[in-house]
């Protein structure tokens, strides 16, 4: 008996011994690269730095939508059962968003996810000052969006940062320092889609231009000096033949665009304004592979702010729509498909006759005909020379140099076939910026700076100025108690 037990134990022990090698729990890896084994070659470093720019493509949704749908130039009305989406779009245009608003949470994630990404990349290239400073300048662009949309946000630059809220003034100071320090090492010449000195100066000028909003005291002189560097750069940016020429499908040749984010129909998706704005049946107008979504449109007052002769009106799609064959298009109720400027409800039911045709649509970004894909290849324009001129005009005007301001404003006007102005008011500058920069993602920023964002307009009756900052999304506060909610929420 004892012998048998001994035998059994021996067998058992031997078995366990022979299987010792089978207790190794190191995780096998095949289709990904462990973090400590990457970034060994220049090509790998370049590929890793890619997302710092690639991540910017989120701008067409996460920055554009909140910046435009909350303004006076773009609205996403509820069209019957379509586009209600839990009321998120109406909340934008009515200024009734709450800390629970999903897309605002999406914007926060876009901004801070990319900041975290860059913070991880900076140590990777720490020995290359030019690369570090380029990353810092791109990060500054995300922080610019953060200070503009949320105001009081954490300043996170590395793993040691604690994630607590800093005041908007502190974020302003941080941004000014970052950009001022980084700009000298950036490319002085042209480098398509890269954060060059011109692009960074444009960003710094935007910061100074909004200093009154961000830190309570304006910096018009600094704004003027900085934007002047861009206007007078040796890289020779100039107004293109027309405003819309900067937004064509192959717009990489534009001599007016200062900083763009490249898109490609297949290789780099996200440029899909045509999907958001066109009616379903416009698929036949442009020979599109997908049927568009019939959502985004402009408001009548904004549409009417364009003079009759204004060449920039070409950005609007209005009236009867036709198929490529020339046939008149109809809507689902067999009524002529004709977009109308003025509509009375921002929340329409199927019974409202105009529910599908309400609102003039936009083709600021040229619609890519016969595109089988939902995404287009136009590059997104962040900064362009006309904006620089209008910014310099605004700074001059604020500094009392109205004559200089008029020169800059009129350059932009004359190109579009409207008469030069002889006198200039604050209102004129905002309106001109509106017409020139319509649907480019700057309207909310401009309206806040000119104090009109919280004024009553059609479909917007919430005159609460605290809405000039978006709320810190509740989901973020739940996950990070160091965050402080903005006033008024």
């Amino acid at each position: 008996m004892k012998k048998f037990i001994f035998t059994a134990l021996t067998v058992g022990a031997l078995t366990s011994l022979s299987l010792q090698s089978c207790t190794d729990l190191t995780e096998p890896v095949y289709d990904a690269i462990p973090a400590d084994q990457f970034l060994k070659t220049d090509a790998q470093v370049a590929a890793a730095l890619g997302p710092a720019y690639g991540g910017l493509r989120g701008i067409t949704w996460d920055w554009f939508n909140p910046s435009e749908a909350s303004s006076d130039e773009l609205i996403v009305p509820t069209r019957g059962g379509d586009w209600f989406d839990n009321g998120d779009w109406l909340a934008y245009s009515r200024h009734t968003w709450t800390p629970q608003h999903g897309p605002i949470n999406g914007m926060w994630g876009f901004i801070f996810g990319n900041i975290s990404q860059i913070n991880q990349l900076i140590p990777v290239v720490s020995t290359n000052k030019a690369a570090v400073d380029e990353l810092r300048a791109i990060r500054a662009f995300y922080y610019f969006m953060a200070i503009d949309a949320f105001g009081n946000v954490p300043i996170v630059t590395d793993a040691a940062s604690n994630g607590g809220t800093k005041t908007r003034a502190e974020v302003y100071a941080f941004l000014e320092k970052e950009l001022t320090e980084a700009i000298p090492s950036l490319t002085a010449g042209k480098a398509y889609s890269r954060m060059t000195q011109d692009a960074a100066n444009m960003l710094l000028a935007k910061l100074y231009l909004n200093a009154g909003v961000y830190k309570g005291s304006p910096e018009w002189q600094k704004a003027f000096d900085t934007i002047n560097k861009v206007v007078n750069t040796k890289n020779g940016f100039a107004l293109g033949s027309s405003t819309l020429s900067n937004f064509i499908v192959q717009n990489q040749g534009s001599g007016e665009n200062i900083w763009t984010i490249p898109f490609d129909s297949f290789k780099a998706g996200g440029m899909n304004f045509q999907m958001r704005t066109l009616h379903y049946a416009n698929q036949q107008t442009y020979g599109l592979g997908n049927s568009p979504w019939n959502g985004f449109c402009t408001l009548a007052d904004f549409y009417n702010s364009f003079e009759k002769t204004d060449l920039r009106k070409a950005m609007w799609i209005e009236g009867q729509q036709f198929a490529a064959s020339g046939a008149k298009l109809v809507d689902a109720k067999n009524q002529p498909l004709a977009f109308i400027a003025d509509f009375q409800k921002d929340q329409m039911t199927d019974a409202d006759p105009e529910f599908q045709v309400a609102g003039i649509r936009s083709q600021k970004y040229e619609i890519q005909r016969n595109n089988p894909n939902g995404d287009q290849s136009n590059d997104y324009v962040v900064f362009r020379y006309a904006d620089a001129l209008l910014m310099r005009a605004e700074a001059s005007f604020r500094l009392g140099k109205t004559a200089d301001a008029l020169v800059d404003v009129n350059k932009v006007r004359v190109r579009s076939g409207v008469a030069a102005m002889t006198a200039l008011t604050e209102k004129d500058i905002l309106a001109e910026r509106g017409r020139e920069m319509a649907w480019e993602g700057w309207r909310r920023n401009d309206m806040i700076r000119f104090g009109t964002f919280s004024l009553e307009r059609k479909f917007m009756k919430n005159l609460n100025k605290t809405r000039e900052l978006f709320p810190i999304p509740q989901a973020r506060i739940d996950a990070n108690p160091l965050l402080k909610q903005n006033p008024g929420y």
Partner: protein
Amino acid sequence: MKSYQVGRPSERLLAGVKKTLFTFAAMLLTSLTFSVMAQDVTISGTVKGNDGTGLPGVTVQTKGTTKGSQTDVNGAYKLAGVPKGATLVFSFVGMETKEVAIGNKTTVDVVMIDDTKALEEVVVVGYGTQKRKEISGTVTSLGSRDFNAGVVTNPLAAAQGKVAGLVITSSSGDPNSRPTVRLRGTGSLSAGSEPLYVIDGVIGAPIENVAPEDIQTMDVLRDASSAAIYGSRGSNGVILITTKRGKSGTPTVDYSAYVGQETISQRPDLLNGADFRAAATKYKQAFTDGGANTDWLDVITRKATSQNHNVGISGGSENFSYRASVGYLDQTGTLLGSGKDRVNARLNLDSKAMNGKLAMKFNMSASQANADIAQNRAIGFAMNMRPTDPVFNSDGTYFQIPGTFANFNPLAVLENYSQKEKLQDLLFNAQAGYTIIEGLVFNVSGTLRTQNRNSSTFVKSTPGNLLSTVGGNAGNRFLNATNDQQLETTLSYTKAVSSNSTLSLLGGYTYQDVINDGFGAGNNNFLSNDLGANNLGSGLGIRTNPNLLGSYKNEYKLVSFLARAQYSMANKYFATVNVRRDGSTKFGDNNKWGFFPSVSVGWALNEEAFLKGNSAIDNLKLRVSWGRTGNSEGISPLRSKSFYGPSGTYYDGGTDDFLPAYAIQGNPNPNLKWEVNENYGAGLDFSMFKGKLSGSIDWYTRKTKDLLYVVNAPQEKGFVFPTILANIGSMQNKGVELSASYQWVDNAKFSFSSTFAGSFNKNKVLSLKNNDFAAPDQVFLQTSLGSFIRGTSAVAFSVLQAGQPVGVFYGAKVAKIENGRYVFQDLNGDGKVNQANPDREDQTYIGNPTPVFVGGLTNNIKYGNIDFQFQLISNLGAKIVNTNNLLLGRQDGRIAESNALKSALTTVVNDERTLPMDYYVESGNYVRLNNASLGYTIPVGKSVVKRARVYVAGNNLLLFTKYSGVDPEISQALSIGSQAPGIDVRETFYKTRGITAGVSLSF
């Protein structure tokens, strides 16, 4: 060879099969030796059972030798070469072995009686078996005869309503769908709540492709004390499947087959052409009248036929037995283009050698299932399409509403979109058990399982690119190979401590290595639809889109040590202790090993003096248990560390092109670990009035801690990605389970018994945070309402919140309908309600989607040769959000653009808002006549056919419910971001009613 000439073809075939099997066995069993004895006399005789009929297949052996024979179909035998004065041993499974000293006789007739000890139920408990009466955990066993009848193509459907606490929800009539299975409630949010399936000792084999005909028993380990032996994967209970094995005796051939027809049992009540015109007139909606009266649902559905055949051959001798089976299933679905066919083959071999000390088992199975997957969205489109529009234009092309968004002609979708999936599964398992000394057994088991999933999708180009496909036509291929290797070694020791006390010990080591390896490719813009997805390289799409290629490979290993001690004292007191230690490569560096202990005790009260001799009580056993199990299935590989992988593209100025960018793939969590499930339970087994009434009652509390959930990661604190998989929070299920069987009548001619299995369960989320991460106080769960309903993408009807059941409905309360518009109640009493879109403060909990009670009642009636069986199942207490009503039941519905429910003609609601509200929450109570069968056993006399039964059966025959939607059996699946339990959505493949006729024969 002579027998080959005279034998009937089937016998010849059988002999051939047998011969092959034996050759195969001989190759495997090299240690088998037979000794040849000197021959003396020839003994003959007949073996009968206690009912007086001859017993075929009884093994007759001379004691102490391997020399033996078997009785023929009439129970007769002849055994030559028996030494004078020897003893004959008569053995047969299920009978008491009988020894007869032959003396001088040459004719020996014996009567064999049932072996009550052998019939004593043995329960499979994982890494071994246990006698039913000694079980102290909570285990339910189902035999194959308990399975549901009718079109039942997978073991889960066969067990619906049969096991208390096992809730099987089949919300779909798609032959390729899988029911959701929950044991004792939903135990997890994102790690999976499905039990662990173990087939013949092999963990994780695909249960849906096991033919129910091959199953001998299903043992359901309901509590953690039983499931703890499966450690980090036992948290949701374990279902152990034992397939049929051969028995010694003459070969038996079983053939069973059925043909069936399925029709849609309930469908939504939509407007027909005339109704639609009336509605458009009534609601003053202009539309283009196509002049047709099309029933779009009718256009895309059909009566579906199915057939199923299964042949099993089994037999063997004392030391070797086999069972081989082949099954074929061909099932079409009611939605055009849907269907499934499957071939299964299984070979189970058992062999004993070294005087019975070495027992070996070989289990081989192969299956190939071909699925034709139809586009469920066609159902949504069919509901959208106006009944006044024709299916085809006059020129024969598909009719399509002009200028509409992604609302395709459903027939065009089904006829131009094909998705096929071939799943091949091969499993080889070898087990050897060596009895070192009496009671001490060393077991080793090795498994190799490979599964190949090969899918192919093709969308044809249609005139005008009707289906909006990039490139007009598009093909995709996807291949995944899973390679699963398992090794298990156990050493068990059983010793009788005294005459009625036994100690059993088990120790073991197991190792599992799973590799998933696959790639996919797509292309589009082919010059011809004829190529399908069979020549992907020929398309033009990849020239402009480099994202059409991908591949992956990952691997994980699970290493475990396990031990069990069972003690049975005086046949009265029983105790089991299980421990398992699991280590997994998937777990975070800080949590590589988990420990899962359990203990349970049982007390047979009927053996105590105060009950012994009580004529009413046969058996009364009290069980108490505690156990801790884990759930690690929800952790995919590479979640605990940082890895770089491709991440979109970036613009490279040098090449003026977009190059692949690389980035960290997700937020790593080095603390990642399994969910912990702690379970307390107590139960009472009873059997009374000589077995007339038997059953059990169980009470349990099941608490899941360290819930795996994807929570928000604070990106402003350095996390690149917005979310991270972490262990947060806890959840609780409490319940009572009751099973009872009552034998109303039981005599030779007539018997009638009923079996009830039901459970009450209450689920509650306790917390959704840990020290590092927290989910929002209210997590809104979104449900996809289907294609072509815009504006509904961000609608959440359900929430996760501490203190509430999983997925509780949350929304506003409708006070009244005024001028067709919802008027919402002021719930916080501040006198204000945002009527356009009520704020959180004016919303509340409006229903629990999880049923309070789920049960089944099965009745078996036998009269002479006729058998009748029917089963009722019921769900009570669940609530349903009827989104069909919400979207299509209001006055104008979506008229004139799309169709609506008939109720749109009479409803008072004229409000297009898709908000969560109580107005559309309905009771999901129902009772269903789930299945019934009527069979006739044909008296076969002395023919070669030993048994013959013909039957007709039906599934889903009657439904009693007040639910106004299609069917109240709504999916209970929770898939964060896309599906929440209890939401009735349009694109549900309607359940079917099936009628089958079948036959089963034994030769």
